[in-house]
């Protein structure tokens, strides 16, 4: 009965590789988000989708490409991984596009070596 789930929980990979992180929510929410949390715990929004449509893109490098096959899923694909991409990535969802109350997944710790 997990509300927002992410896979994998840990991801260790080498520079230059391409990887994906998957997110699913079973809350029936319309809006989903990706956040990046750095080593100093700073949490910053990257993208948001509402009903499969991109609505926020916070000047993230175009190596990052979100994809939403349906409103319950928002995946994050990262090309040509760099050391600076190492962080914890959180998926979140909210009831609708205006809903500030967001529910977060458990996070994916990405380590690029």
């Amino acid at each position, binding site marked *: 009965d997990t509300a927002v789930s992410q896979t994998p929980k840990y991801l260790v990979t080498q520079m230059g590789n391409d990887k994906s992180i998957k997110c699913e929510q079973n809350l029936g929410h319309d809006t989903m988000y990706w956040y990046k949390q750095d080593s100093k715990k700073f949490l910053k929004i990257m993208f948001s989708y509402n009903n499969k449509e991109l609505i*926020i893109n916070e000047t993230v490098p175009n190596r990052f490409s979100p994809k939403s096959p349906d409103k319950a899923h928002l995946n994050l694909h990262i090309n040509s991984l760099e050391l600076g991409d190492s962080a914890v990535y959180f998926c979140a969802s909210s009831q609708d596009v205006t809903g*500030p109350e*967001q529910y*977060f997944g*458990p996070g994916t710790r990405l380590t690029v070596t």
Partner: protein
Amino acid sequence: GESVGLHLPTLSVQEGDNSIINCAYSNSASDYFIWYKQESGKGPQFIIDIRSNMDKRQGQRVTVLLNKTVKHLSLQIAATQPGDSAVYFCAENVDAGGTSYGKLTFGQGTILTVHP
């Protein structure tokens, strides 16, 4: 421990004490504020929220105070328990005529440690 090298504000309290965590926000147009709790290895968890037309809101063992004059937000936790140990974030949402699309801006976080 987890806090080494983070240089976040820290608050250490004894079990049973009341805790007050402070947050300064930047945007006077923010219309909605939320406190999140993040335990080690987990995602942020919603605690309590407050709209900009209020100055106080109470939940179970928690109270949020909003002072718009000085753009300050605080979270008070009554009878703090070891399970309250976590990083606490305030977040603000800006209603820019409906175009903010629920975009939360998070503060830097405060580490709360509760000693038994």
